[in-house]
């Protein structure tokens, strides 16, 4: 029995993300680099044998997922999650700005964001922290859903950062007419 087979079995049995930590715990001696190599190997096999799924990187581990071309069929079996533009905007504010209140999100977008927030919370893409005031942050599932290893994987974060700094978005409540 090879490590490759076992890694495949482990990732396969997780519905959702299989954490690298868990693989290392179950197969001591196998490092993160080797696991990555094994995953690449497996994906090559899937590609060459015409499998309709592959292993993708997700947050702190790996995840088996169907390839995009089969989505029209799978969507008929599994409730798909479609985000509105408004929800994507709210998600972008939270992802780039970090934990923030609803007031901050509303101010930056210039509109009420509660129904979008609710949608994002329902899909577990946004987490709530229960202090006063309540703040919202992106969840681990957000990383999984968008195929990111961490928030720093978001493209062009520096390009957005300058306008997201407190200078640019702070203190406009009074004059902002909202």
């Amino acid at each position: 029995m090879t490590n490759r087979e076992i890694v495949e079995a482990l990732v396969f049995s997780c519905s959702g993300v299989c954490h690298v930590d868990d693989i290392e715990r179950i197969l001591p001696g196998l490092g993160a680099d080797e696991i990555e190599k094994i995953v690449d190997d497996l994906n090559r096999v899937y590609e060459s044998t015409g499998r309709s799924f592959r292993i993708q990187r997700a947050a702190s581990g790996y995840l088996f997922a169907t390839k995009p071309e089969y989505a029209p069929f799978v969507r008929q079996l599994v409730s798909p999650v479609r985000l509105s533009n408004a929800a994507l905007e709210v998600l972008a504010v939270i992802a780039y700005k970090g934990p923030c209140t609803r007031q901050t999100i509303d101010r930056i977008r210039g509109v009420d964001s509660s129904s979008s927030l609710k949608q994002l919370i329902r899909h577990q893409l946004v987490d709530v922290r229960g202090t006063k005031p309540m703040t919202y942050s992106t969840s681990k599932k957000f990383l999984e859903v968008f195929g990111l290893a961490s928030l720093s994987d978001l493209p062009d974060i520096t390009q957005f950062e300058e306008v997201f700094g407190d200078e640019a978005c702070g203190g406009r409540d009074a004059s902002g007419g909202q």
Partner: protein
Amino acid sequence: MEEPVAVWDRGETPFVVSIQAFEGPLDLLLYLIERNRFTLQDVQVSPIVDQYLAYMERARRLDISLAGEFLDMASYLIWLKSRILLPKPEALQVEDESDPVQELRDMLVAYRAVKAAAGSLGARPMLYWDTFPRGADTDEREITRASIAPLLEAVAAIRLRTRKMVMDVMPKRYSLREIMAKIQSLFARRSRIRLLEAVEGMEKGSLIAALMAALEMSRLNMVRIAQKGLFAPIFLLKRAPVVHAAGSPEQGEDE
């Protein structure tokens, strides 16, 4: 946002469509600025304000109910324009050093960045839309993510449901057995029906009864209930006789 460009020039009726195309007043302002070929750095405020107000006026004439934010922005813009046009009293000038045009510009710059970021997020392949993980069909929530959000939602769901129950005291009686039989007969030809198909007329009571029948059938493992999201149509999927496989044998019977 291409479509508003087209509809703006085509007269009033298609305009109805276009207002919905904007996420909010900032989005509309960005569109107007782009349409006038201004950059954010050298926006001429007056024409933009005039066009924004014209937009609001047309919407008002067409009796479109505008979100409050659009109207708030309109009054802010009127104030802004008056400040630009009127000579400022000396005293105020010294006291208030803020530049309202710069503030508006900052607001637009920040929002434009959010829009761009949202666009780039939306362009990424998304799990549960483009790709699906193993076992994506489960309705149960994974709670090992250290988030209390599912708990808060649960509280909201209880409140919503129990309030409804108090309100909808039904004088008419419905037979669950009858409705279940009706659902069964609908299943004779198809394996998937809309819950609404089992509803007699469109009375609320009948809808509730149909839902209860569906829940009972779900409890008995005769159907699977599927809904893509809050307020989306509810579907009933025919279920074959009980199977006990590796999946999730015990769903809460009291769902």
